Structures are given as C-alpha cells and as structure tokens.
C-alpha cells in the first residue's frame, strides 16, 4: 500500500477498526493502560535506586541534551530552564538542531500548515510567549467550509483573531525573507535567551554509556548526558535509528501528507481569502481533509489523508470546488512542496531512565494542533524533570498521564474523523450539515450547534472528547435529523441550483 521502504518513516497503517476496538477497550477498562503503556512491574526494579532518590533528580551542573529544536524541543528547554532557575538549580541544556530556520524553503522548515490553534495561542499568551508581528503571517478569524453541495463561512462569535498562520521556516523557496520570521526560529530564540545552548549539529546515534544516554553527531562529536530529551519529530530518520539502537523504543506510525505554497501576492490573498481558512470536505478517495491557509504573500495548501501522493494532489487541485477558490480558476504553479509525515499513533512507552520523548516523537494530536500537543508534552516533561525526577518511574507517573490524555483523545478523534469521512461519502448527510450550518450562520442569535462542532474540528481548539460528546447531545442529534429531512425533502427542487454554484 505504501511505497516507503525506510523503516523509520514507514507509515505502518493501523486499520481504523482496530483502533476503535482499542478505544472501547481503553475507555471501558482504564486499568489496561498500565499494561500496555508502561507496566508498573517494569518500573519495579527502580526500587533499588529509590533509596537514593537524588540520583534521579537533576543536580546543579547536570547536562541535558535535547535532540531537535522544533516547537517541542525549544519549549521544553525554555520551560525547564525557567523552572530550574526558580528552584535555583543551575543546569546545562543543549539543543541539537542542525536546521537553520533562517533558510527559505524546505531546508529551513519543519513542514506543516502553520496554523497555531486558538487554544495554543491563548495558553502561550499566559506563558508569556507573545508572537511578534513578523512571525504571524495572518490572524485567522473564520473558516470557509467547501463541499460539493456548496460553501459556508463559519465565524467566531468574538470579533477577534485568535488563530495564527505562521511559517515554520523562513517562508517558501525563493521568498523574500526580509519580513518573515519563522515560528520555530522564534521559539528556539526564546529557548536561547532562557539559557539553552543551541548546537547546529545532527545526531546520528543514541546509545547508553554506563546507564547514561550518549549521543553521537554526524561530525563525530560524542557526549554523554544526564538526561536525553528526544524531540526530533517524525520527519527525520532519527527515530528509526533509535529503534535499532537497543533502547526499548518503537517509533510511532506516520502517514504521508502534503504541503505546498502558492504565490498569489498579498492583495490577491487579502481579496480572495481574507482572514479565513478554507477547508474542503470532498469525496476524493484517500483524502481525509484539505485546507488552504492564507499567509502574507503565499497561500499554503495542506492535505491530510491516506498516503497523499502526486496523483491525489493533482486530483484535489483540479477539483472544481478547489479551482474556484483561486483567481483565474486555476492554482498557479506552486513555489514549494513537500510530503511531510504525520504522526498517527503514540509511542507505547515514550520514556526510559534518563530518556524522554516529547512532541511528535512521543505523541501528537491526531490531524490537528500538533504544535499544541508538542507544547503540552514539552510542558509536562519539563515539569516532571524539574519537580519529580528523571527515572522511568518518574516519567511514568508524572509525564505519561499527559501523553495518555492526548492518546485517548486521539482515539475519540478517530471517531470524529470517521464521522467526517462518512460525511464525505454521503451526499445527503453533506446537504444536511451544510443546511444546518448555513442557517446558524445566517440567523442572528442562533445557537451554533453545528458551527461550533465544525469550528472545533477544523481548528483543533477543543479536545475531541468534547466535540464527540457535543455531537451525541440529544438536542444536536435532533437538529441534525431535522435538517437531514429538510435538506433532502427539498432536494429535488434545489439540487440543480446547488450543483451549478461553483
């Protein structure tokens, strides 16, 4: 099914059924986590060291290596250093990040849609992380949902932009970098100001040196640390290497997705897209979800699905619903393109003694708000390290719960996306969703049942659990059924008109 041969990036598909089965099992038997997360018995042998618990706490002068200066690595470093400073413990944090985020194009970029979710923006605000003007390419305040049965705009009730469209690197290939500062560059600079040392070196080997993690770089540099934090994401071969290194670790499964940038010019973007993100629910096989995100001069396309490839990209971009979004009814040649991998599962045990996996390399939120989950795991790991300790046991009790929460929510997320998938397949369902949303958006003061569900699905602002429970609410179901009937009762009369709308 997949053409990837590299073990590290092999998108080992997990059948949806199997996942849902697992969801049910976990929901009904929370105790089962202990077994397949990280067995308490596995943690048992630690007791011999428990008497000397200082061994498992960072001491002044200890060294921490962070592999990867993406959002997870940079935020972790910043949080850890700040908390340790509060505790008056002086430690060394070194971030290994070979990438220079000042490069244009994929060489300087951690490839993603660059949508910083509403909830993350707010939390970063409380953490004191302000995104400067050069970082935010556009504030987003609404979504336009496109389906074959029509389009509808969903707006926030607040007159406020709380979603940021950013570049992870320094903008697309050949862009003029002067006015752009990348999101990742900003975060790693904050980590640097907090005292982290950034080493522009690539890690090519991880092993243990008398119980302490040791890393080796492409240039031969080798160093042993007291704590190793792996934040390398799933878009490098590193996790595959770690799998083979003898550390008990199994890389998360990932699928191929697609990102491209189109140069349209600021005025065209302003005119045609404004401050809205455009999302598409189209009946194209293997396509899960696609979005167009307006930025400064460019428009970013993100396609998520089942092994997105060249063929799928073309069939999407040639779909009439998509073409009509572009001036001239056709997307221009794209400036930049890549097929990044999207984390689809979590690591069973994203930690060991003195080792912890954060961000995408541990667990990521399904399809949406990956940066948000990078933040959450980074924060949880930093708190665990600073306040509890660095043994597998500490991570099990104080870090793993945060991961588990995301992992469980992802299982529910699969149900939500299963529902979206159904929607893409069933025309009559699409009609009713469209009708319900259009009416809600048109009617002043209407309670936005459908709109808020869609908003949360698209923006990734609320946990999937909440979204799912809201859709199960009797009132919501009632409205939906009513709209199902209404939309499809009139369909004979309206079908032609709707189909003719571009």
């Amino acid at each position: 099914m997949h053409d990837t041969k590299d073990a590290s990036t092999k998108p080992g598909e997990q059948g949806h059924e199997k996942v849902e089965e697992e969801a049910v099992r976990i929901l009904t038997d929370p105790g089962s986590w202990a077994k397949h997360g990280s067995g308490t018995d596995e943690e048992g042998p630690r007791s011999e060291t428990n008497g000397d618990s200082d061994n498992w706490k960072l001491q002044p002068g200890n060294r921490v290596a962070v592999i990867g200066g993406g959002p997870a690595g940079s935020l972790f470093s910043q949080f850890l250093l700040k908390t340790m400073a509060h505790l008056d413990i002086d430690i060394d944090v070194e971030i290994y990040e070979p990438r220079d985020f000042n490069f244009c194009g994929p060489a300087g970029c951690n490839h993603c849609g660059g949508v910083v979710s509403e909830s993350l923006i707010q939390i970063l605000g409380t953490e004191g992380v302000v995104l400067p003007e050069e970082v935010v390419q556009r504030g987003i305040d609404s979504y336009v949902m496109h389906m074959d049965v029509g389009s509808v705009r969903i707006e926030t009730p607040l007159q406020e932009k709380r979603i940021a469209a950013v570049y992870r690197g320094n903008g697309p290939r050949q862009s003029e970098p002067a006015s752009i500062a990348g999101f990742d560059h900003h975060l790693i600079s904050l980590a640097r100001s907090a005292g982290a040392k950034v080493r522009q070196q690539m890690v090519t080997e991880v092993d243990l040196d008398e119980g302490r993690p040791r890393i080796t770089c492409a240039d031969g540099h080798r160093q042993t640390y007291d704590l190793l934090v792996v934040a390398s994401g799933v878009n490098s071969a590193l996790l595959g290497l770690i799998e083979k290194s003898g550390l008990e670790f199994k890389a998360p499964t990932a699928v191929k997705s697609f990102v491209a940038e189109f140069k349209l010019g600021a005025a065209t973007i302003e005119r045609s897209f404004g401050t809205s993100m455009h999302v598409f629910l189209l009946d194209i096989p293997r396509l899960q979800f696609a979005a167009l995100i307006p930025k400064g001069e460019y428009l970013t396309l993100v396609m998520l699905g089942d092994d997105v490839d060249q063929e799928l990209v073309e069939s999407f971009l040639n779909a009439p619903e998509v073409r009509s979004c572009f001036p001239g009814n056709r997307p221009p040649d794209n400036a930049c393109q890549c097929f990044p991998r999207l984390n689809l599962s979590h690591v069973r045990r994203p930690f060991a003694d003195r080792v912890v996996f954060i961000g995408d390399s541990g667990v990521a939120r399904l399809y949406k708000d990956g940066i948000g989950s990078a933040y959450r795991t980074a924060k949880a790991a930093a708190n665990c390290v600073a306040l509890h300790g660095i043994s597998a046991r500490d991570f099990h009790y104080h870090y793993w719960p945060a991961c588990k929460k995301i992992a469980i929510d992802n299982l529910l997320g699969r149900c939500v996306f299963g529902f979206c998938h159904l929607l893409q397949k069933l025309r009559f369902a699409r009609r009713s969703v469209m009708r319900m949303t259009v009416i809600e958006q048109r009617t002043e003061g209407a309670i936005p049942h459908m709109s808020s569900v869609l908003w949360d699905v698209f923006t990734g602002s609320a946990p999937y659990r909440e979204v799912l429970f809201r859709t199960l609410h009797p009132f919501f179901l009632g409205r939906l059924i009513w709209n199902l009937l209404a939309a499809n009762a009139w369909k004979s009369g309206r079908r032609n008109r709707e189909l003719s709308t571009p």
Partner: protein
Amino acid sequence: MSDLLGRNYQPGEDIVTEGEVGDCMYVIQQGSAEVIRTEDGVATVVDTMVAGDLFGEMAILEHTVRSSTVRAVDPVRALTIDRKTFLRRIQEDPSLALSILDVMCRRVRNLDTTIAHLKHQLAELSANPEGGSPDGSPGENAP
C-alpha cells in the same frame, strides 16, 4: 495590523469596563493601556500595562465583576483568554497558575509601594497641614 492576532482597540477605547461581568482575561500583544479605578466618582489611574502583560485574571478565578476599567492609551492589540480554555489547561498543568501568581505578586508589590507612599504623605499632611495634595491621593496619578 488588521491581519494580526487579537483584537484592535483605538486610543481611549475601553478594553474592559469596571462593573461588567467578565469571563476571560487579556494579554496585551502591542501598545499600552491604563488601569483605571473609580472611587466615589473619582477616576484614578492605578497601573499601566504593556505588551506581554496579563490582566482581567480575577474573572477567571472567581466569577465577579471587573474591578477596574482598562483603557487603551495608544492603539492596542489584545488577545482574550477564555476562562474555559484556561481552566481546562490548569487542571492538567497547575504550574500555569504560576504565571497568574506572578501577575498578582507584581500587583501586590505595586500596591504595597503605593500604600507606603500614601501613608507617608498622610503622615506629612498631618504634621504639616498646609502642604501635600488635599484629597490624599498620590498627586502624579490623578487623572
């Protein structure tokens, strides 16, 4: 600025208004704003906020009315933080409350200084009834 995060406020515009019920707090992204408190009909500027500063946090912790008005001095861009989002996160990560504590500590410290200042003025006033501000408020802060 219109395409950036948050909401824009013109100079002189109220971001929050004393006495209103609120369910969010704010982080200033750009510009500065004054915190104004009205007592017996007299409005007093008690603090100034700049980019990165948080305010309105009381509304998140207890369901009460806004204790003061925050008014934009120059064009301000501010982001709201929902009570719901914040409380959801703080459950998972209590250390987030530290940032709120930081803000409160700063406020209390400012308050202490102001009280000390006022006490000093009051003492001077009673020793030397001719000098000082007649209403007893810190002169430079009077609107």
